[in-house]
Every structure is written in C-alpha cells, then in structure tokens.
C-alpha cells in the first residue's frame, strides 16, 4: 500500500516537473519543419491520384520530373532533363538527361547506380503501357487518362543511357505543360526490379524511392509522415534535416497548433481567425491561384438531366453571400469555370445571378415546384473551398426559399470520393485546382466524356460537341485558334450548366516567421525543396 502510494507521488512529481518550459533550444526542433497537412496521403506515388493532399505530401518532396515550370518566368526549366527538343513536327520530343543524379538510399533500398534513361522509360511505361509489369500495381492513373496523356504518347524510346525520346501520336500543345505537372514523376527502375524479385511490387507506392530533396522515413496513418533530407541531392536542397507532415484534418486545430508552435506551416488557414488573433510571429501569405469551386449536378440522375432545372437551381443560390461569409471576401465570384487570369477566359455568356423569383419560375416551367435533393459537401478544406459544409448550409436555406428541400451529405474524405465516383450523389460541392497553366487542364479532367469513366467528371456529363471542341483545341498550337475554341466551349458550358462555378479563391498559407524558403508554385502543391528554419536568435537580428 505504502509502496503504491510513493509510486503515485513520484509519478505526480514527474508530471508536474513536465510543466516547466524548456529554456534551451533543442537541436532536432531547430533542424526540422512541421507541416500540418489536412489529411492522409492515399499513396506515396502521385501518378496514381489527383488528390491535392497526396500531391502535396509526395510530388515535390520525394520526386523530380523531367522538366519544371517556372511561374515567374512563365517558362519550362530543366530538371532531370538538362535539355530537350521537339522533333518530327512536334510528334517526338528528345530529352537529354542529367548525369550524376542519385536516388534515395534508405534502410530498405540502396541504389547501385545513378539515374538514367531506364528510369524514365520505367516511370512512363508504368501508366502508359498496359502490358508493363507494374501497370496493374496500384490500379488507375486518373490524371493521365483524364488529360489523355496515355493516349497521346505512343511510346517512350531509350536512345542511349542518357537520352530518351517520347513519341507522340499527334502534336499536342499541352504536352510539355503536362510533363511539368506534379504527376509526371520519375521512379527508380532498379528499385522496382528489386521489389518484383522479392514479390512485393506494391511496396513501390508505400515505401517510395525517388530522386527528390527528401527521402521517406516513416508513415503512421492519421499521425504523421516523416521525411529526412536527401544528402546527395543533385541541386540545392533544403536547409533542414527533417520534414514532418503532422496530419491534422481539423482546420481549427491546425490554426491553434500554428499558434502554439506545434506546426511551422499550415495549409488552408482560417484567415479571419488568424487576423483576429493578430500574432506577429505568424505570417499569412496569399497568392493568385488557378482554381475554381463549383456545384456539380449529377446529370445522369433526374431531374438534373434537365438543363432547366440546373439553371433554376443556379439562380436560387446567392453566390455573393457565399463569398462574403465562407471566403470572408477573399475570393472572386466565378463567371466561368476558367479563372479570369487564364488567357482563354471568357465571360460573355448568360449570368446566373441570384434571383429566387426566376428560379421558382424556371422550376415550375420544368415541372418541379417541389423538389428534394441532396448536396454532398466535401469534408476537407481546399484552396478553392475553405468550408464546403458551411457553404452547403448557406445554400440549403437559399434553396428552401424557392421550395427546394436540400439535405446535406458528408462522409470521410476517401469514402466521399469513392462514393462520388460511383455517382451516388445528386449534387456536390467540390472544385478543381489547376495542375498546369494550360486551360485544357480545366476542361478535360473535369468535363470530358473520358473523365466520366475515371470518375473525375463529377457532373457525369458527356456532351459530344463539347468534347469535340476540346480535342480540336489541343490539336492545334495556334493560340488564337485555341482561344476561340475554348470560348465556344465555355458558351456550351454556360448554356448546359452541368456545374455552377462559384468562386475563384486566392491560395492562403500561414506559417511561422522562422520558416523560410517554402514555395507555393501556382500550378502545384507545396514545395519544401529550399525550406530552412532560422533560430529565434537569428530572427531577432534581422
């Protein structure tokens, strides 16, 4: 009894002594950055997904691409390919690869050779060649099928150890832009071979090997991902030793953790809250970002197969109120699916302004004076939509005014997307974030007939005329011609209205002042390649 008692006492003293704040800076804390990400990655291979969370967590950190896109210069810059040239009227591209690029050396794989043409061939063939060994490992490649890249590329040819040719079926103006996206990453062919020998090919997406600035250390679902610095990185690497993704789905908690210093940097902050807090050790940055949030109608389901109904519902929504309350004014009302910054932008069509009277009239015209629908609201925050659930609540009361009874549906994110792909929804609040600067990126992955099959087309809308326009637009490299084609595409959209664009938001990120060098490329996730952390002492000097 007394023994137990003394144990209790010592336990409490230990507990209490824990209260004292530590005074000295501990090294692992100053040599690492914690990024509080909003969710678990589905996989560690961005080829397999379109989800922003997975891309943020993997693409720029673990892997490199053949070429990168520099948003400032608005040009493609070399990465793993030192240079490239189009041949045969743009149906063949030759890439000269960089020498001396090391793959990650980890406790589960030690590379014996440097990066070469074999790796490029393997990486492309994985999603391109249905007969390749790894094609069926991990399932589908939604980005490549939605953009048609898998149909565009005929084959990847190894010219010599350090030269690769990519042969296209036809010339495509968006080809290079797609190559520069976060999805076209380079894997290690040697590692893949090793795994197939071990008969564990699936590990390639779970324990990744790449050439990127960080290498994979560990992953605990719902807790964290740990990366360490790649010591032999081929270009300037990070100034930190460790990068941790602390998985925090709750936006409010993310913000509080930033305040308490448990996060160094967070995505999708609650801007208004941070402003209310007014802390001088936290910086909120924002950038223009090519995105759109929209309300998609499942056109396969009646009554949403009737454009009249879709138009009526669109008139019922007070989008300006949404921008004021959900985005706190930090977004622009969307007039088209394309953001105004895009060169193909066009807003000459009909405007679906807030007009309950008209909405009711249109509904009666369509023969639906009483309507019961559901609104699926995604459970996560995205650049384009900081709070879909709340947006749904707003819309619910707007809809009630025109006699439409709306029910809000939400599931855990992965379940949500799975069921969405199956088309179980009536309408859904979701959005899109461009992967590259090409306007095509807003159309084909979202609204093409091909995207219906891959599940990217949330409206399940297949319009042959519209599809035709899209294919004509990518077949030509003439900018004016393309612009005209995209404008007519936007006109069709505006009339058919498979989805109602709501807002183009700015991209926000909040971080501690001590974190430097984190890049937010406009067409990609987050990039920690040059991230460093300055100590408090250094900070005060500046």
């Amino acid at each position, binding site marked *: 009894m007394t023994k137990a008692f003394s144990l209790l006492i010592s336990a409490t003293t230990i507990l209490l002594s824990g209260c004292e704040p530590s005074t000295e800076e501990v090294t692992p804390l100053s040599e690492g950055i914690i990024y509080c990400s909003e969710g678990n990655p589905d996989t560690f291979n961005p080829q397999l997904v379109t989800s922003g969370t997975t891309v943020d967590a993997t693409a720029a950190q673990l892997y490199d691409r053949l070429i990168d896109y520099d948003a400032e210069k608005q040009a493609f810059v070399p990465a793993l390919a030192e240079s490239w040239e189009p041949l045969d009227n743009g149906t063949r591209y030759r890439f000269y690869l960089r020498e001396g690029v090391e793959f990650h050396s980890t406790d589960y794989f030690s590379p014996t050779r440097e990066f070469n043409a074999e790796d490029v061939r393997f990486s492309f063939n994985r999603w391109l060649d249905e007969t390749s060994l790894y094609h069926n490992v991990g399932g589908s490649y939604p980005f490549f099928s939605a953009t048609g890249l898998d149909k565009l590329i005929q084959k990847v040819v190894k010219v010599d150890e350090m030269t690769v040719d990519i042969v296209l079926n036809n010339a495509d103006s968006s080809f290079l832009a797609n190559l520069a996206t976060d999805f076209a990453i380079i894997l290690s062919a040697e590692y893949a071979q090793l795994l197939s020998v071990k008969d564990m090919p699936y590990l390639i997406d779970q324990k990744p090997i790449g050439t990127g600035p960080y290498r994979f250390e560990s992953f605990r679902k719902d807790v964290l991902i740990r990366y360490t610095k790649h010591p032999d990185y081929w270009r300037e690497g990070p100034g930190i030793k460790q990068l941790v993704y602390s998985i925090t789905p709750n936006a409010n908690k993310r913000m509080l953790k930033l305040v308490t210093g448990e996060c160094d940097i967070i995505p999708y902050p609650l801007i208004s809250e941070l402003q209310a807090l007014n802390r001088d050790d936290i910086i909120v940055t924002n950038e223009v970002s090519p995105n759109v949030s929209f309300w998609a109608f499942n056109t396969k389901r009646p009554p949403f197969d009737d454009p009249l109904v879709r138009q009526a519902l669109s008139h019922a929504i007070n989008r300006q109120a949404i921008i004021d309350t959900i985005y706190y004014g930090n977004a622009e009302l969307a007039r088209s699916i394309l953001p105004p910054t895009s060169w193909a932008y066009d807003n000459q069509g009909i405007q679906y302004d807030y007009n309950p009277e008209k909405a009711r009239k249109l509904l009666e015209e369509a023969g639906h004076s009483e309507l019961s629908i559901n609104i699926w609201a995604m459970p996560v925050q995205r650049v384009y939509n900081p709070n879909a659930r*709340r947006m749904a609540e707003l819309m619910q009361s707007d809809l009630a005014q025109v006699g439409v009874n709306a029910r809000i549906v939400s599931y855990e994110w992965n379940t949500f997307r799975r069921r969405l792909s199956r088309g179980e929804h009536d309408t859904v609040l979701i959005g899109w974030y461009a992967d590259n600067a090409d306007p095509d990126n807003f159309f084909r992955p979202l609204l093409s007939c091909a995207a219906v099959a891959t599940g990217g087309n949330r409206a399940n809308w297949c319009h042959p005329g519209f599809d035709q326009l899209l294919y004509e637009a990518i077949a030509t490299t003439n900018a004016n011609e393309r612009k005209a084609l995209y404008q007519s595409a936007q006109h069709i959209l505006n009339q058919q209205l498979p989805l109602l664009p709501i807002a183009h938001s700015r991209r926000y990120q909040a971080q501690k002042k001590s974190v430097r060098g984190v890049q937010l490329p406009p067409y990609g996730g987050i990039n920690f390649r040059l991230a460093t952390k300055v100590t408090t002492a250094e900070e005060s000097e500046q």
Partner: protein
Amino acid sequence: MPHINLYYKDENPSPLTLVWRRFKERLLSMTALYILLAMILVVIFSPILAPYSTSMQFADAVSLPPSWTEQGNIQFLMGTDDLGRDMLSRLLIGSIYSLGLPILMVAVSSIIGMVIGAVLGIDRTIKYQTFSRVFDTLLSIPSFLMALIIIAILGTGLFNVALAITLSLIPQFIFVTRNAVHQEWHKDYVTASRLNGCSKPYLLYRVILPNITPILVMQLTVSLSVAIMDIAALSFLGLGIQSPTPEWGSMLARSLDEVYLSPWSMVLPGVTLFVTIMSINIVGDSLRRALSERVNS
C-alpha cells in the same frame, strides 16, 4: 369551520411522497428542479418562443455579439453565428434535439427496460447468481461504446442516433429494475402478500412498484443525463446529429472554427448543456440523498 383533527391519526404516506418531502426541503434541489421544468417547457414551446427560424440568415448581421455587449443588437438577444443565424432561436429549437429527444429516448428505453427487468426480477428459473454476475460485468461496457457500435452499423443521422442511444440505455434499466424487484421480492412483506395468494402481476404493481418507484425515478435522471451527454458527444464528434440541425453538441463543434471571431457561439451552447446536465444531476443526487435518508430513518 376549520377541520379539526380529533384523533391521533398517523398518516401513511407512500415511499415516493416521503422522498418528495425530503427532497422539497433543499433549496438547491428545488432550484434545479425548477430549472429543469423550465427547460422542458422551453422544449415544448420552443417553436413559439423562438423569434426567428433556425435557418434564417441575416446577411447584414453576421457574427453579431450578444445584445448585452456594446456591439450587440437587441434584435438578436444572444447574437448571431457566422452565417448570421439568430443564436437564441437556435438554442431554443436546439433544446428539442438536445433535451426533448433524450427525454423521449429515456422514456422509450425505460418502458422496455423496466418491463424486461421486472419479468427477470421475479423469474426464478435462471440460475440467478452467475447470471447476475455476468450481466453485471457486461453492463460495465459503456453505453457510449454501444451507441458507437450501433451507429457504425446504421450510419449517422437523427433517427439512427436516437435509436442507438435508446438501445444503449435499455440494459441499465433492465439491471436496476431487476435488482430492485429482486431485492424487494425477498422482503417479508412481499412474502406475506405472496402467502396471501396475490398474483404475480398484482404483486408487481401493487406491492413492489410503490416501493421501488424512487429508485426507478433516480435511474431515470441518471439515464437522462447520460443520454444528453451521449447525444451531444456523438454530435460533437460528427457521428450524431449533423449541422445545420441546431443540436447543442453540433453547434459547439462547428463553433470551434470561429472561436476568436465569435466566442459566444462556443460559450452559449456549452453553458446551456452544462446547466441542463447539472440540474438533472442535482435532482438525481438529491433524490438519492432523500432516498437514503428515508431508508436510514
């Protein structure tokens, strides 16, 4: 003419009356009881009392503080939330889900549980001791966990949550009723009635029931506070009643995103929940106390 009591006549109040007399003596318990009764009135009349509809959004009054603060507006007594909805109306209507629904759930589960418990209590065919021990042990699996399992089976939503909590409360009622009946059954006065040839239903309703009513009433209060807590906790976790339904727990959960912008939207539902549970607990505790005093005296 005033009534004069000429004879010594010892009244013979029922056990419940005795407990009630003791209960009345304490100011605190009466206060709690009045609060509780007021809350129940609010549940019944909330549609009349609420000044606005719960989904009505005032675009020009978003995140308005309560009226007693400087920025407040008397139009919105308790302020508005981030979508410009009147807090007071939401709290009032919310009582239907956060208090009314639990009362209904407890009512249903108590009827079912008590009937089963009473039958088990007088049934002698099962080997009593072992059965009761095993039952005891299984009862210590928390009702919240049971509710979670049922939700995992049925999915979330108002009806499913109500069903889940109702089902999870039943075992407690069975247990308490059975034990109480069982204990009374062995007392001499029941034996005497049995020897007089009373039928089992008669025994149960006329002989045993009056004597175990206080215990059952106490269990009702305990279950009610558990039900309120469970439904709020489930909604808070996002597994219960979903917003925009103004259930207090879900209001609390959604308020977390604007704690700094509108702290009242977090404080008000919390305080309401707290006061409700507290008054139920005080009533329950006073009952327990009155009960033990009656037994002791």
